């Protein structure tokens, strides 16, 4: 009994979050809200993977929309053109995404800082352009429609509630395994190579291999999310996989709080809820959004996760403590 209680206590955050996420559809019948919740789930999957790459391993990707696009288009093309089983299509697309990540990752992850950012950006743009230009395969800007819903053992996952549970079920699995990674040999090696590649290599870490591996994992997460998405909206077009989307993804990770897996949660929630509020501004939406990005980065460089720390620091300063408190972490926005 004591073991069960201590297990619950240790994993209370995860369990609590899982309960909330899975129970959410019971509180609303509104299809629109249910869709937003489900899309929060797919977005969350991509951000989780990106958080492993950017937050843990300290790399940068401004091209991650491309991997979601590979998953989306892979599923779309395989299921509509060749009537491949949607689950198999999802797996195959994820495999393709991992392969592309592996191939592009080897030369790209040798780069650092600005060069890495621009390299990933270039990659993302090339994928976008190919999606638009390879009309014989992708239908170009017209997009592909008629993508079937997912179903399994009689359950139709085209229905909002069922889809929500499917997506969030998978997302929660991804969250759990990401959390597991933190306190592990591989997880520590990623944190180490983020902080000092030279030191990590001197301790036996094959940093090149680890970086490419984590890129491949993040590509798989993104690809699966992309596949889920198109099986719900039954349509895909290149306009969803632009640089803007890649930047929004990177921003979500940073705003949530780099380096903390839970940052991916807060970031995803904020970045999906925010546009809903901003919708009322219509033409001004992007303007307000852009300004908000600026303000958040200036005033909260450590992301939402650091609000606790920032509040503590503020309290200490107000309380009149002299000198600097120990362990004031630098903003984690660096490379």
């Amino acid at each position: 009994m004591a073991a069960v209680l201590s297990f619950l206590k240790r994993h209370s955050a995860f369990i609590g979050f899982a309960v909330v996420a899975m129970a959410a559809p019971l509180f609303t019948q509104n299809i629109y809200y249910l869709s937003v919740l489900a899309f929060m789930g797919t977005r969350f999957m991509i951000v989780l993977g990106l958080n492993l790459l950017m937050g843990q391993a300290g790399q940068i990707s401004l091209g991650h929309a491309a991997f979601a696009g590979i998953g989306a288009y892979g599923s779309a093309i395989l299921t509509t053109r060749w009537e491949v089983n949607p689950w198999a299509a999802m797996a195959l697309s994820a495999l393709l995404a991992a392969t592309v990540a592996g191939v592009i990752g080897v030369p790209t992850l040798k780069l650092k800082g600005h060069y890495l950012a621009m390299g990933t950006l270039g990659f993302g743009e090339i994928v976008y352009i190919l999606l638009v230009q390879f009309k014989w395969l992708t239908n170009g800007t017209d997009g592909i429609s008629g993508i079937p819903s997912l179903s399994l053992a009689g359950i139709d996952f085209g229905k909002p509630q069922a889809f929500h549970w499917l997506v969030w079920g998978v997302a929660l699995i991804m969250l759990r395994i990401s959390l597991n990674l933190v306190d592990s040999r591989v997880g520590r090696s990623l944190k180490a190579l983020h902080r000092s590649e030279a030191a990590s290599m001197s301790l036996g870490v094959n940093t090149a291999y680890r970086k490419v591996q984590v890129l491949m994992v993040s590509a798989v997460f993104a690809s699966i999310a992309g596949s889920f998405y198109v099986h719900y909206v039954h349509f895909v077009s290149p306009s969803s996989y632009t640089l803007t989307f890649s930047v929004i993804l990177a921003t979500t990770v940073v705003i949530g709080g780099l380096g903390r897996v839970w940052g991916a949660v807060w970031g995803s929630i904020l970045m999906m809820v925010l546009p809903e509020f901003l919708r009322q501004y219509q033409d001004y939406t992007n303007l307000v959004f852009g300004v908000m990005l600026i303000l958040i980065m200036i005033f909260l460089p450590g992301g939402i996760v650091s609000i606790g720390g920032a509040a503590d620091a503020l309290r200490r300063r107000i309380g009149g403590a002299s000198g600097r408190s120990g362990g004031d972490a630098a903003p984690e926005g660096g490379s």
Partner: protein
Amino acid sequence: MTFDQFLQYIFSGITTGSIYALTALGFTLIYNATDIINFAQGEFVMLGGLTAISLYEAGAPLAVACLGAVAIVGVAGIVFQQLAIRPLLKAGILAQIIVTVGASLAIRTAAMIIWGRESRPLPPFTGDTPIKVGEATILPQTLWVLAVTLVIVVALQLFYRRTLTGKAVRACSVNSGAARLMGVSYSWVVLLSFGMSAAISAAGGVMITPVSFMGYGYGAMLGLKGFAAAILGGLGNPAGAVVGGLSLGVLEALTIGALPIEGASGYKDAVAFLILLLILFAKPQGLFGGRAVEKV
């Protein structure tokens, strides 16, 4: 491809290439002063063109409208630096990228609200009768673009090498700490760099508007190609930025010309990114070597 067609592509290539060069140059000035990659650089080009259009439509003579636009956007660059960049000088790369992207989005949307969604023209500086070179033609405006770009580049070189202020700016980009100890005001250098950067890019926008019109979305892709050009030439190297921009423009034009497939122009944008990736993988310091290469 006949020689005349080839020549035509070259002309078209150097025209757009000059704008890439000016964008890349503006971007390099800011990078040298602050180590920041300014994703909003393309918006200065866009603002230059649209501001000139507004001034002209308000009745100003063309020359006044153009020069006025350059000055106004130069000031806008300074304002941008004060509002968005100054708080970020010590932040990490990601924070800087996100802020400049946010700024780019905001500026672009504001432009859409102010000037609408349509692209608008400016009259060419000296008429639009094409000049014949063999069977190829070149627009007078193209000659203006090339000439002004050349003047700007030369003037910048003179500024850097012959004036005290210019040398101070160079000193800061090499070693800001030492420069400050010698009495150079770092914040003035940054201000100046942003003003010049915005003005130079705006000049590009003003000059290209008669050729290809100007709309609120023009700056987005331009900024990206400007980076590709700057990296091609060597990040932080002003001469490299110019050569990179021109080369990129020509390579793009030739690619469209050379590809035998229909709809080749859609692939034009891919050229810039392929070149970018190639350079990053093979020779990240660029053709001419930039500033210090990032090490671990």
